């Protein structure tokens, strides 16, 4: 009798050890500019850039152990489909949890649910913060500890791991980046209306760049050591974050500030932030987001004289060429959007993002006609979100 009407409870009950869930989104978008593309969108409507299907399976072995995997099928050319997550969870008590396996790196508030559009108000979370730069995933362990006081609750998360990845964060070709000794700490504090998250992440990054190393060796053999030293391809990268949100029943504010720094030549120092305000008239959420960032490369070393000899001039030109190829992604954006939660498990969204790039910088655009492009464009998107 007790279990007579527990239709929705059965799936979560210990009697059922296998749990299957998922999320899906269909996103259509168009950019009102024919001189560039942005996030894969051009001036004709396309569905292929953000649409995806994710499936999660949780297998509970006993009260303390479980195994989770998440598979993703993605329609974008920029993303690989396959296993996103595969980890084992050990939870000795309700406050302490360990996970081991392949996971998403928990840099920012939405880093580990970036594909689950149902979890956030936007269609595209602010690119300045959420565009992938380095080590999105890692193989390793996460430990988290939760404590609850009468006025707040807090969760402390630490992780350690490593990952080898392909990156193309500059216009230089796609290269292998090995990240080792990746470690981070995040503290999440939740009060009645205010929530704050602060995190610090570090990892030793080694980018396999044979041409750059070869050129560095040539410079060194010609005794231009300072110049050779500036072509750094490995070192500790650091990612720091502060996020704050304030929630009332019918409105909310949200902000995140992040910094990325590294000694590596092709990884610029980045400061980014976004500010979001939302207003709810159930079942609609209206929101506005302003986002901005700066991106800076280490300055070029001025050591090689010019006009001495053609061979030396060639070295100077080669060095200048490397700096010319480093692209800056700096953009200001204003996004206005609406989310309609028309069912408990589904939402429709629409949003317009006005983008203002920096003249002469790549600004997250893929510029197809540099002569005509004015670094301003509007991205219009609509999306259907589903969780099951």
């Amino acid at each position, binding site marked *: 009798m007790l279990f007579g009407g527990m239709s929705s409870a059965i799936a979560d009950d210990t009697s059922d050890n296998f749990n299957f869930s998922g999320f899906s989104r269909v996103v259509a978008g168009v950019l009102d500019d024919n001189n560039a593309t942005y996030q894969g969108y051009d001036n004709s409507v396309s569905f292929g850039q953000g649409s995806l299907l994710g499936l999660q399976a949780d297998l509970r072995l006993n009260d303390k152990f479980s195994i989770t995997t998440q598979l993703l099928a993605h329609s974008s050319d920029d993303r690989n489909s396959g296993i996103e997550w595969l980890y084992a969870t050990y939870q000795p008590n309700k406050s302490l949890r360990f996970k081991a396996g392949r996971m998403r790196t928990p840099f920012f508030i939405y880093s580990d649910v970036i594909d689950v559009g149902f979890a956030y108000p936007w269609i595209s979370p602010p690119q300045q913060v959420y565009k992938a730069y380095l080590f999105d995933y890692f193989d390793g362990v996460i430990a988290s500890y939760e404590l609850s006081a009468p006025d707040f*609750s807090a969760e402390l998360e630490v992780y350690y791991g490593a990952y080898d990845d392909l990156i193309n964060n500059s216009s230089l070709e796609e290269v292998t980046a090995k990240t080792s000794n990746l470690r981070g700490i995040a503290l999440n504090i939740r009060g009645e209306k205010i929530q704050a998250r602060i995190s610090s992440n570090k990892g030793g990054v080694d980018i396999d760049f044979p041409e750059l190393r070869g050129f560095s060796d040539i410079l060194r053999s010609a005794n231009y050591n300072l110049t050779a030293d500036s072509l750094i391809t490995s070192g500790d990268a650091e990612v720091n974050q502060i996020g704050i949100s304030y929630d009332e029943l019918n409105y909310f504010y949200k902000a995140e500030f992040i910094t990325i720094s590294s000694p590596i030549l092709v990884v610029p120092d980045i400061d980014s932030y976004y500010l979001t305000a939302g207003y*709810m008239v159930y079942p609609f*959420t209206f929101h506005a987001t302003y986002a901005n960032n700066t991106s800076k490369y280490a300055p070029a070393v001025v050591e090689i004289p010019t006009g001495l000899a053609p061979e030396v001039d060639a070295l100077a030109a080669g060095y200048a060429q490397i700096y010319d190829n480093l692209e800056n992604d700096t953009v200001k954006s204003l996004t206005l959007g609406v*989310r309609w*939660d028309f069912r408990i498990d589904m939402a429709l969204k629409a949003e317009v993002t006005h983008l203002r790039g920096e003249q002469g910088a790549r600004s997250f655009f893929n510029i197809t006609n540099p002569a005509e492009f004015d670094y301003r464009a509007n991205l219009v998107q609509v999306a259907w979100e589903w969780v099951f």
Partner: protein
Amino acid sequence: MKHWLILTTLFVFPASLSFAQIANANGIVVVANISNNDLTLSKQQIRSLFMGSSVGRDLKVATLPPSSLTRVEFNTKVIGMTESRIQSYWAQMRFSGRKTEPLQFDNENQLIEFLNNTPGAVAYLPASTAIPDNLTVVYSSANN
């Protein structure tokens, strides 16, 4: 004009109806099947508990479905978020492997039966509910 009427009927009217009912509701109590009859929890602890945190105790949290007016009142008075925000939150927790949603029962009778039969069970009920003697009221919205 006609469209606005339809929109108003579809969304604004049911919303204002439920808010009116909430304003007239008696409040919410949170009830637990525990041996310590003196235990009381703060609003923030209740909030943490129903959002998947442990508050340091081995409690089994149970809820009512989103269509339940008691749930709407609990969301409004204790959680402080609308149902759609709460659903977003659970999507974030589930797919980042952090927390899973509480058990959900179809109606208050089933919830009371679960409370009666399960040591450590905790759930919200309308303040007007006749609470069985073996259960402890750990929180009341009237006092907060």
